[in-house]
């Protein structure tokens, strides 16, 4: 019936602690008030210290109740707790000391009040850290200062990722379940922060469960508290993770369910648990690192850039951080081979080159071949025939070539076969698309999009309902 009483009292702790802070400070102020005749303040000091002592003990009691009710780990609150009680005890002894000596100027009293001030400050600071987080004060400092003092101690867990080739050998618990828990749950369920008396950091803690008992029902995922709480509506107060925190994506929950269904083994691999590939495919990271080559380049010099832009080229960085650029002749329809040659100073920066609708021809290809980081090449609506396309095999990052409405020929496209990276060529509305058959395409190391899609008329097209 009255089970709410204790939690409620506990939660008054953050309020009550301010009373001893105030009283102790006022006692100290009156003790050291710069005035010759200090005896005049003696009754005030005594009374203030009495109030300090009583409120300090009251703060201790509520604090201990709070600690018991809210599932703090002892390690996290130990210093605050010990110091808090020490503060209350020193307060008490100082009161009796002054009462006995009937003066405030005594070496013993000076020492005690000094220590009192120190413990009070420290206790308050530690208490603040408990409620606001340990980095509350430091996180607003400039990054440089934080790093010098080593205050950045945030635990970081990346998203789950699996190797597309070897995913079946991955351990279901260690390499899938635990990473999912790390990313979604761990910030509140770890050694330091044990919400609901639950840790989700290891096999043992998972099996142990929290204050509401076990969280895993082996073979029955929907009855497991772990899953149940995640599937509650977002607005439900028991929903986990809390509404304002990052929510697990659907496939993560599905994997946790599959793990429980397969018997919640801590040793089996994904393959042994017979997990279908559809469940894990969204976590595959391709072996190749990223679509664009990873490079260490200084950003292009401003005046070089300005020069090339004034020629008519569109040049823009791929992203704010990346030095790599996209170059396009979109505003430069009269662009010819020699104009493109003027891009020489930034040749290693060019990742995307779009010369569609320009006046370039096959003689340009040797120059393009020198663009070591070229990933995407667009030559739509140009006179390119592709006579020297074998040169493009030097562009080891080149993944896509757009040749829509160009003059590219079948025999020239074949020169690109077994290109190290090339995945797709767009060749709609070209001489090639007219003479090439599908079986020929199937033999190539890359896909060719020849388009010419049609949507046959249907009897319903003309019906008026």
């Amino acid at each position, binding site marked *: 019936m009255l089970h709410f009483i204790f939690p409620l009292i506990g939660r008054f702790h953050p309020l009550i602690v301010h009373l001893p802070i105030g009283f102790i400070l006022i006692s100290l102020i009156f003790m050291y008030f710069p005035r010759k005749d200090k005896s005049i303040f003696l009754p005030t000091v005594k009374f203030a210290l009495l109030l300090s002592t009583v409120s300090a003990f009251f703060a201790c009691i509520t604090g201990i109740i709070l600690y018991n009710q809210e599932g703090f780990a002892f390690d996290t609150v130990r210093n605050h707790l010990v110091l808090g009680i020490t503060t209350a005890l020193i307060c008490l002894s100082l009161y009796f000391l002054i009462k006995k000596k009937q003066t405030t100027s005594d070496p013993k009293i000076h020492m005690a009040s000094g220590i009192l001030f120190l413990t009070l400050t420290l206790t308050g600071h530690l208490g603040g850290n408990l409620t606001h987080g340990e980095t509350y004060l430091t996180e607003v400092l400039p990054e440089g200062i934080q790093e010098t003092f080593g205050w950045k101690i945030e635990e970081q867990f990346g998203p789950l990722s699996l190797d597309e080739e070897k995913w079946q050998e991955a351990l279901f618990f260690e390499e899938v379940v635990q990473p999912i828990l790390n990313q979604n749950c761990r910030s509140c369920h770890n050694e330091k922060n044990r919400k609901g008396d639950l840790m989700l950091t290891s096999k043992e803690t998972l099996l142990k469960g929290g204050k509401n008992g076990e969280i895993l029902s082996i073979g029955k995922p929907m009855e497991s508290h772990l899953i149940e709480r995640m599937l509650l509506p977002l607005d439900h107060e028991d929903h986990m993770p809390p509404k304002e925190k990052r929510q697990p994506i659907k496939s993560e929950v599905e994997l946790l369910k599959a793990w429980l269904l397969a018997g919640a083994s801590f040793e089996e691999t994904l393959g042994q648990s017979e997990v279908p590939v559809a469940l894990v495919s969204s976590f595959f990271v391709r072996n190749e690192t990223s679509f664009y080559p990873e490079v260490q380049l200084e950003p292009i010099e401003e005046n070089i850039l300005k020069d090339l832009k004034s020629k008519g080229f569109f040049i*823009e960085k791929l992203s704010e951080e990346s030095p790599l650029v996209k170059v396009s002749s979109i*505003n430069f329809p009269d662009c010819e081979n020699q104009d493109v040659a003027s891009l020489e100073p930034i040749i290693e920066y060019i990742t995307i080159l779009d010369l569609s609708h320009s006046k370039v021809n096959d003689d340009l290809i040797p120059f393009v071949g020198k663009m070591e980081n070229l990933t995407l090449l667009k030559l739509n609506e140009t006179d390119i025939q592709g006579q020297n396309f074998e040169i493009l095999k030097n562009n080891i990052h080149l993944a896509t070539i757009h040749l829509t409405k160009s003059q590219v020929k079948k025999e020239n496209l074949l020169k690109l076969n077994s290109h190290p990276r090339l995945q797709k060529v767009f060749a709609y509305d070209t001489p090639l698309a007219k003479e090439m058959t599908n079986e020929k395409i199937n033999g190539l190391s890359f896909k060719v999009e020849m388009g010419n899609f049609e949507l046959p008329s249907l009897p319903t*097209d003309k019906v008026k*309902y």
Partner: protein
Amino acid sequence: MKRLENLLTELHRNQLEKQTRRHFLMDCVSKMGGLALAPLLLGCETNSGKPANSQQLQLSARDLNPLSPLPPPYFAKAKSVIYLHMAGSPSQLELFDFKPELVKYNNQPCPESLLEGRKFAFIRGVPNLLGPQSNFAQHGESGAWVSDYLPHFSKVVDEVAFLKAVHTDQFNHGPAQLFMQTGSPRLGRPSLGSWVTYGLGTENQNLPGFVVLTSGGKTPDAGKSVWGSGFLPSVYQGVQCRSKGDPVLYLEDPKGINRDLKQTLISSINEVNKAEFEAFGDPETLARINQYEMAYRMQIEVPEVMNINDEPEYIHELYGTKPGEEAFANNCLLARKLVEKGVRFVQLYDWGWDSHGTDHDTAIDLGFRNKCNEIDRPIAALLLDLKQRGLLEDTLVVWGGEFGRTPMQENREGKTQGFKGRDHHVDAFTMWMAGAGIKSGASYGQTDDFGFSGVEGKVSVHDVQATILQVLGFDHEKFTYNFQGRPFRLTDVEGEIIRDILA
């Protein structure tokens, strides 16, 4: 030069004429108040952080040309967007969200538990449920459910990713359209297209970055604010092109005025405007300068891009265009042409989807079906045409309405209606995306047996917007604009990226 001097003297004289004794008295009073208010209102200015009036104002490329391109903050999957908005909101229950249970309960009263505490635009009391009026089948390798209302689209379902449980919180067209396009149901925020052109500029300097095309006889209920620039400089608002006749009026030079003369005229006007800007520092003056220049440059490229007659016959057949008429099909073809020419954001609005069942045109099995026929082929054609030209590699296509339709038959004013119709519904509706950065063939979210609310994978309007921005290389939480003393975002304080539909 002489002419320019004359113009400037004229301007100077005009300004002098305004300075009368009354002005002196008025200025004395108002400017004293202004002085007092200035420190209080600090931060209300739009270009906060910049000195409003100073000779040594540093002008960046962006100031001189607000549409000059900028790199996206992060690697972007898409560089352009084609957004197909079906104004009025089509019924998801006839098109994509197949509910066999609803067939069984056709014409049965809707369970009261569903109606409790709900408000509908027109439904009163307890309406009857209305089963799906179309026949569904699974299509493509992805096995997506699409009805026979969209026979052409059902052939390209493997290109798209469905969002089956989108929800909004506005059940009237105007606010819901504003919410979908600007992130707020009230006026004053920039539209998605404005945010994107503000963030990325435009690649083709001869065309606007944000083009709007409308069809269906009317513009959206929320008016032009759905493509407005809100508090962003007005140069970022959508440029609406006419859907019939000349897309942009007065592109032809008037008789007796050649292009050179026009250029001299425009550069003189811009000189004056620049002087004006230096004096007052109002960014709107820059927008003005830029629009003059843009209009001049557009004269060359627009007639070519906006003319669909040059397209080969089989392309016209593919799209089912109706040359000379205002048609969604023409707009789809135009959208492809614009994106091909480097336009950043093309927004299509098709009006006439408000299928309440009050008459033949709004009946879910009659007029609605005709509307479906109008968009079915063009949309399938657009996706295929983008795909064959390689444009789908860097273009994001979005389709949706501003909300969905009820699983219940509408009973306007509590009466039985002669036609089958559905009311506005906010709890669950379908949208789809295709192209750059999208996991093609995906389907995310699920609704309950009646299609009333989402039970899984619910996404909000802000989630959809966050996802679109993500594909374009933005972090929707960091993409802000300072206005009235605080940074504003498209997604306000919400929005989660829908990672399940991203490739």
